[in-house]
């Protein structure tokens, strides 16, 4: 009797295994581990990309450490990781550093993979929408406008009834690429007012500081009469202000954010594989939202270890493909990089070896 049971068991297991085999899609034959580090702004997009990539290539493990843009670039240049995600493009000094990961003299690739609008979020009772010109935003965050019924805000919103309420302006207390992009935007559009240094640190000692995108959103949500700036995908139900672009009022729409890139100029004196862009913050075109954060993927053009090169090629090509950008847009709420920009990025990543 036991022999019969034993036989049945063996048959059951074998048939299950065969059934599994039959259901399997043709799997990729890539294997290995790929390590990257860098910006936390692209963190949720990277998670979505890693999940999709590992599903399609189940022999590969990708690890991304969202330790920050600065830490990511340092890790890559010192050879600790194979690729980096960064909110600021590589500086000229960093370009001349040789990474131990690369074949000497072949240089780096730098492609934009993540574009996210930065929303100016507002929490005032009874306000469902609001327009704010760059000069108004600069004055609010500098502490020069202290009440919601100020004449400058009323001028931007003719006919709106704004309450007599003190403004609490919330900025990032930690160093962040979001602050750098916000500061850069205001220095280009309201430069006579916004004269502080453009860097990862908020340049003025006024207003509330909160740590992380979630900290700013929490502070704005839990306070009254609060205003802050944060990644639009995390803004939730908060009212996002429409900013003045030329003659138009534009809200943080994903397509409007992506429209900045074709409008902008590439950084001068960069190699063919470096797509670093100086964003056109003072754009006056319709349908463009210039208050965006662009995150780049950085790596070697020719890896010293060919196995790593093959993996980076596959991963980076996925990120710059239409499927990859759609995946990020749906999971992380970013604006998909599209059109000529994406095609050029895809050509660069296809040449990685």
């Amino acid at each position, binding site marked *: 009797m036991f022999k019969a049971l034993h036989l049945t068991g063996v048959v059951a297991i074998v048939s299950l295994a065969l059934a599994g085999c039959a259901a399997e899609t043709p799997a990729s034959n890539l294997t290995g581990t790929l390590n990257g580090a860098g910006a*936390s702004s692209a963190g949720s997009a990277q998670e979505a990309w890693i999940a999709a990539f590992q599903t399609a290539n189940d022999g590969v493990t990708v690890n991304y450490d969202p*330790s*920050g*843009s*600065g*830490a990511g*670039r*340092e890790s890559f240049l010192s050879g600790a990781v194979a690729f980096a995600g960064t909110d600021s493009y590589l500086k000229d000094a960093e370009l001349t550093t040789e990474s131990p990961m690369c074949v000497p003299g072949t240089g780096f690739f730098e492609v934009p993979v993540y574009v996210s609008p930065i929303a100016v979020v507002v929490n005032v009772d009874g306000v469902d929408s609001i327009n704010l010109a760059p000069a108004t935003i600069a004055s609010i965050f500098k502490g020069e406008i202290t009440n919601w019924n100020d004449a400058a805000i009323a001028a931007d919103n003719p006919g709106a009834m704004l309450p007599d309420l*003190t403004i*609490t302006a*919330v900025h990032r*207390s*930690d*160093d*962040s*690429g979001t602050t750098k992009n916000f500061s850069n935007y205001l220095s280009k559009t309201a430069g006579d007012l916004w004269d502080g*240094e453009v*860097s*990862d*640190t908020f340049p003025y*000692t*006024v*207003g*509330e*500081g*909160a*740590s992380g995108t979630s*900290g700013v959103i*929490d*502070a704005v949500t*839990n*306070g*009254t*009469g*609060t205003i802050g700036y944060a990644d639009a995908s995390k803004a939730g139900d908060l009212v996002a202000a429409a900013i003045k672009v030329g003659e138009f009022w534009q809200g943080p729409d994903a397509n409007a954010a992506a429209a900045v890139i074709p409008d902008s100029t590439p950084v001068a004196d960069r190699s063919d594989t470096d797509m670093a862009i100086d964003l056109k913050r003072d754009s006056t075109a319709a349908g463009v939202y210039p208050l965006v954060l662009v995150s780049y993927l950085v790596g070697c053009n020719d890896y010293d270890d060919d196995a790593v090169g093959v993996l980076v090629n596959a991963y980076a090509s996925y990120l710059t493909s239409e499927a990859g950008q759609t995946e990020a847009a749906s999971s992380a709420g970013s604006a998909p990089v599209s059109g000529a920009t994406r095609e050029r990025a895809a050509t660069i990543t296809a040449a990685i070896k």
Partner: protein
Amino acid sequence: MANARSQVPKKRGDVVFSGLVTASGIAILVTLSAVAIFLVVESLPAFNPTADIGNAPDGFWAYVTPLVFGTLLAAVLALIFATPLAIGIGLFISHYAPRRIASSLGYVVDLLAAIPSVVYGLWGIQVLAPTVQPIYQWLNENLGWFPPFAGPVSGTGRTILTVSFVLAIMILPIMSALAREIFLQTPKLNEEAALALGATRWEMIQLSVLPFARSGLLSSAMLGLGRAVGETMAVAMVLSPAAVITFALITPTNPSTIASTIALDFPEAAGLNVNALIAAGLVLFVITMAVNITARGIITRHARKVAF
């Protein structure tokens, strides 16, 4: 007789055990020196007076002084709030409460120590800060002439006073556990002598319990201070920082602490900024060591006085 000890036979167990114990002692010294050497070596580029540090345009010392001020201010305020509370809880458990309530109260207070500091940070932002904000408003309107309550009042309540409340709750378990143990160790004879002479319960505590417990309470305060000085996540999440030195406790521009600044700025730091942050860590290390050495000095002096 002087040679008696060297002639006691040593078994292998003795040799192994004494070797293990010595190795443990050496291991801790090696670890401490490894950390100290790392801190010193990595901080040196930041101490160079000609260094151009991005986050510290006016030099390293101008950068770190407000941080030292903020660290000490938050820790001292936390100690001011926590010490009377810890002594009260300790006395209640050891001398006033019925047995059953005493042990469960002690257990509940110890449970506070099990809560991670990130959770304290979340609680601080979501619950405590919005609750105390109207109180700060009231304090500013009625007592605004008193410098710590000067305006402008923070709109979200995330100030250094709120951080001190959170820190006080975090250091309460360890302080009250120590206080409890010390009060329970008061010699019964002293207590009963005081009661026999006609003292009331409070007078008995004043006469026999508190003097006996003084050095132990001091050491618990130093432990609490050490924990408060090094607390990172709760402060980083709750505090609204700015690089200022001020005694105003309810404004949105508060002096930040060293540990929380390192936590907030390290991810995006590069080059000399990293060295500056590690140098700030070295300053914190020195402060904590100084606090501990002072505490030990005071305790030893007290112990010598009390010993009979």
